[in-house]
């Protein structure tokens, strides 16, 4: 559905996007993650043909963006962080205008249907200047879905929304994906991406550092596992014995709670239990704490590690 | 950054406005200064006659009519700028030094003619004040001038004879009066017929020559076909005289034989109008007296013709102007509305009479040779009176030759305007606001 080949964008010698190769399959929800200034928006603008790449090509729906610019864009729906509405228009007029622009047939029915679905029908004739942030965002979705696009590009779609709004938009995204729409989400809210996206791409300083399914990405990132062991009684001998193991990298003791950072290459839990029992200790419980995507994202971007390079 | 840019634009604009203001002040501060320079004196054909002038150093081009004799002379004179007219003026009375040499005419870089100074005279067949004029050169010029001098001599002779006859007449007249007086005193009754029969007749003064010829002067007479040339003055020592190089444009009319009208409004004898182009319309209030004077006219390039009349004139190279060449006299002016001829007007002489008293105006009256024996008509024309009773619509004038044949190109439209409805124009202006209101109300209704 989306494919970029060695996409580069330079501004006065500064490389905002560097040799970006993206692949998004049809029907997928793709999360595009990166810190501020990583090149996410520049990439989206190039995907939309609004910015011309310095080098490289964008293919959407298998077509070259540079050649079939308008035909391709007609099949995309976009929701950005801010909606930039024509404040003097009403919601109905606004959607009518875009329906006209996209050449939507039976536009009246379609507009009313979308407004109803997004709980905006009641404010159809209200001036957009009087719309709340949440209403504006919902109207943005209505505009993006108006022409029944095959691909939805969402740039920070839930930014600034209250929890109810976020839930409604999240449900909507899932619903649209179920209908077979491909969804590309650029977001800094990692929890959202983690929750919604099957595949994630991480970009930093214009470079794509990782691109994989959520599970694989986590596996690749979590080479250290944290174990929290609850003991009946803390003993110095236990700590000393455990410290002798090579696979244990760090030990922290806090009351009867022992926190170990161990290598994730093998399951060492049995070996640890045995060592504790050997020193007269009683294990009340063991909890494994996996690294969240947020932690993985911070690790990968701070260290600027390219998992793709590792693969190579 | 943007604010800096905006400020820069505003600052630049202030500078520009200030600069324009400074220029305006500077222009007012210039004092006229006399400068000695080489100029070309001109006596050039303008389609009707000859017109004079000079080309100051600031003018690079001289414009002349093709295939006509035009006389030009090179002179050193004092030139000064006259701010009121915005033109240079030559002080020929203070300095008028003829520059010796030959005039070379070049086509491209090649000298095609070398002109020596030769005698030339202007011949005015209608007299000194007539506009028609011909320029003769060489032997012909001298012959015409001699003919004119002969005519003048003959006239002076006739004047002398007339004065003698006048003296005799006055003497005879007095004698006759005396005789009548004596006979009446003697009781004789004298018949009126006898008095009329025997009364001495006053001699008729001789008429001066009807033509005028200027004394021959030595100038370069240029007669060249259409085209662009250059001229320069080569001094006797073979050098090119400084500032003598000029471009020369020889032109002719674009169209000839057109018909135009000079119009004298009844109250504006001094400010005549003209209606030269058939597309021009005469707008009148319908309480007018207009005197029409039809002309044969030729059409010339506006810039070329203006520059021909005075090299310091301005004009548009893309513009054209009609020039009245010859008056049309043997026609009848028709005033009509549609097919219906309302008036047939014949050409009559008119006299412009000063109104005595504090009004200091004038009145145009029909010239009557009997009532005005010592006067000449001021002009001749076709008098059209547009009565206030005429319907405020479109009318036409045209010229009719003999046998009902219309003069080609003589048709002009006269429109009588409806002045009384002028105030309605402002009400008409409100119309777009009305449409705006309809749109506004329509939108409101649609919304509700």
């Amino acid at each position, binding site marked *: 559905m989306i494919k970029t080949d060695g996409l580069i964008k330079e501004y006065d010698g500064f490389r905002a996007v560097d040799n970006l190769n993206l692949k998004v399959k049809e029907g997928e929800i793709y999360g595009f993650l990166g810190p501020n200034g990583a090149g996410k928006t520049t990439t989206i603008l190039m995907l939309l043909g609004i910015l011309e790449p310095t080098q490289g090509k964008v293919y959407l729906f298998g077509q070259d963006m540079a*050649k*079939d*610019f*308008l*035909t391709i*864009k*007609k099949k995309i729906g976009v929701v950005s962080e801010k*909606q930039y*509405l*024509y404040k*003097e228009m009403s919601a109905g007029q606004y959607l009518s*205008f875009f329906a*006209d*622009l996209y050449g939507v047939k039976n536009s009246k029915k379609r507009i009313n249907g979308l407004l109803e679905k997004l709980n905006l029908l009641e404010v159809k004739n209200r001036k957009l200047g009087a719309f709340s942030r949440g209403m504006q965002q919902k109207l943005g979705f209505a505009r993006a879905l108006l022409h029944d696009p095959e691909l939805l*590009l969402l740039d920070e779609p839930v930014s600034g929304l209250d929890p109810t709004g976020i839930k409604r938009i999240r449900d909507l995204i899932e619903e649209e994906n179920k209908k077979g729409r491909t969804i590309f989400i650029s977001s800094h809210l990692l929890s959202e991406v983690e929750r919604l996206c099957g595949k994630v791409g991480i970009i930093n300083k214009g470079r794509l550092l990782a691109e994989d399914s959520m599970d694989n990405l986590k596996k690749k990132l979590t080479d250290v596992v944290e174990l929290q062991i609850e003991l009946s009684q803390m003993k110095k001998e236990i700590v000393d014995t455990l410290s002798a193991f090579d696979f244990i990298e760090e030990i922290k003791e806090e009351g009867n709670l022992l926190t170990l950072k161990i290598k994730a290459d093998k399951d060492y839990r049995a070996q640890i239990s045995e060592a504790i029992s050997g020193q007269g200790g009683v294990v009340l419980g063991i909890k494994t704490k996996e690294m969240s995507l947020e932690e993985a994202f911070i690790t990968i971007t701070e260290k600027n590690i390219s998992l793709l390079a590792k693969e190579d | 950054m*943007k604010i800096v840019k*905006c400020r820069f*634009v505003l600052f630049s*604009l202030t500078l*520009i406005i200030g*600069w*324009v203001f400074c*220029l305006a002040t*500077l*222009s007012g501060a*210039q004092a006229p*200064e006399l*400068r000695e320079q080489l100029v070309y004196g001109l006596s050039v054909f303008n389609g009707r006659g000859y017109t004079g002038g000079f080309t100051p150093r600031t003018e690079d081009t001289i414009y002349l009519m093709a295939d006509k004799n035009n006389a030009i002379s090179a002179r050193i004179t004092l030139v000064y700028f006259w701010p009121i007219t*915005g033109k*240079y003026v030559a002080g020929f009375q203070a300095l008028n030094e003829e520059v010796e040499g030959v005039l070379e005419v070049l086509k491209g870089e090649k000298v095609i003619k070398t002109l020596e100074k030769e005698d030339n005279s202007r011949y005015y067949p209608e007299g000194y004040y007539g506009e028609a004029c011909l320029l003769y050169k060489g032997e012909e010029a001298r012959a015409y001038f001699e003919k004119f001098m002969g005519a003048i001599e003959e006239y002076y002779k006739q004047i002398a004879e007339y004065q003698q006859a006048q003296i005799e007449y006055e003497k005879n007249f007095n004698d006759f009066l005396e005789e009548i007086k004596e006979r009446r005193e003697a009781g004789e009754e004298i018949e009126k017929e006898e008095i009329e029969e025997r009364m001495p007749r006053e001699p008729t003064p001789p008429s001066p020559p009807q033509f005028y010829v200027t004394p021959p002067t030595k100038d370069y007479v240029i007669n060249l076909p259409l085209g662009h040339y250059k001229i320069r003055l080569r001094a006797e020592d073979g050098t090119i005289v400084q500032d003598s190089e000029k471009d020369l444009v020889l032109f002719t009319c674009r169209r000839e034989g057109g018909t135009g009208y000079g*119009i004298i409004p*009844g109250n504006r004898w001094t400010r005549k*109008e003209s209606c030269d182009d058939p*597309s*021009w*319309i*005469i*707008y009148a*209030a319908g309480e*007018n007296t*207009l005197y029409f004077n039809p002309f044969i006219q030729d059409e010339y390039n506006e810039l070329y013709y203006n520059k021909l009349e005075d090299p310091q004139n301005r004009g548009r190279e*893309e*513009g*054209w102007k009609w020039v009245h060449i010859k008056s049309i006299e043997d026609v009848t002016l028709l005033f009509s509305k549609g097919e219906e001829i309302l008036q047939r007007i014949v050409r009559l002489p008119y006299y412009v009479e000063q109104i005595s008293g504090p009004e200091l105006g004038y009145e145009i009256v029909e010239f009557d040779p009997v009532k005005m024996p010592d006067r000449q008509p001021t002009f001749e024309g076709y008098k059209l009176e547009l009565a206030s009773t005429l319907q405020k619509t479109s009318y036409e004038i045209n010229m009719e030759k003999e046998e009902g044949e219309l003069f080609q190109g003589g048709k002009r439209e006269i429109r009588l*305007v*409806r*002045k009384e*409805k*002028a105030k309605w*124009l*402002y009400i*008409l*202006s409100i*119309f*777009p606001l009305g*449409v*705006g209101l309809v*749109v*506004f109300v329509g*939108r409101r209704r649609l919304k509700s």
Partner: protein
Amino acid sequence: MAGKELSLSIHTMKALAKRDLYSTLSSWGIYITTFVSFVASSFILKNFLGSIKGDDILISADPLNYPLFISTIIISFYLALLSAISISREKDQGTLEVLFYGPVSSSSYILGKYIKNILTYFVVVLFFLVYFWGVSLLTNMGFSSRLGKAILTSIFSVSCVISFGLFISSLTKKMRNSIIWLIGVLILFLAVEVGQTILLGLPQGEVSSILTYLSDTLSVVSRGANWISPFSYLSRGIDAISLDNSFLWGLNILYSIIYSVILLVLSISILKRKGVRG
């Protein structure tokens, strides 16, 4: 595929022009400007009529052309302003980016704006026809073919004005800057014109060498400004009509078309290069 792109482009232009035209015609601006221009015309015409009295006559082929010229200049200023803020306002408000998410390209956007403004002027032309027809009925000043020619000329010169406004707008990011630039450039044209008139009035050859140099420079600048200033196309066209020079008139129309095309192409390429965010 190229044909599909073209038809999409045309559709986009139509949709954009339709929306903008509706918005313009729904607001009071155009009606008030036309009203003001007609008041100015009526004032001139009333003066013309006032000068035709008693034996005073007026001889003219096209007495309505001058009022039309003044009206067109007033409306042109309004349309220039409208064009000059059209792109920058959308950039300023961010709506331009949202438009470009859809099937909108720089060319379809600029041409859509151009078409809208030209159509707005067509509406004004309808007002002109009604107004001058009314003038003709009221005063018998006549509705000549030359007036028709002048109205036609005005369409082409207004096209120049609109293209010029769009060009200024494509260069600027903020609406306020567009207005300042537009007014600034127009004042510059005026300053060149006035400066040249003043310098031409000075005695040539008797002024200082600096003033002579200035005069020559200004003469060149003025000649250039005559081609750059969109308003000069109207005065040249009206001049050609009054000169009854059809060739010059046609040539001026051709120049107006070339001028409009050049500025529109420049605007499109600037918008492409600068992007929707300025």
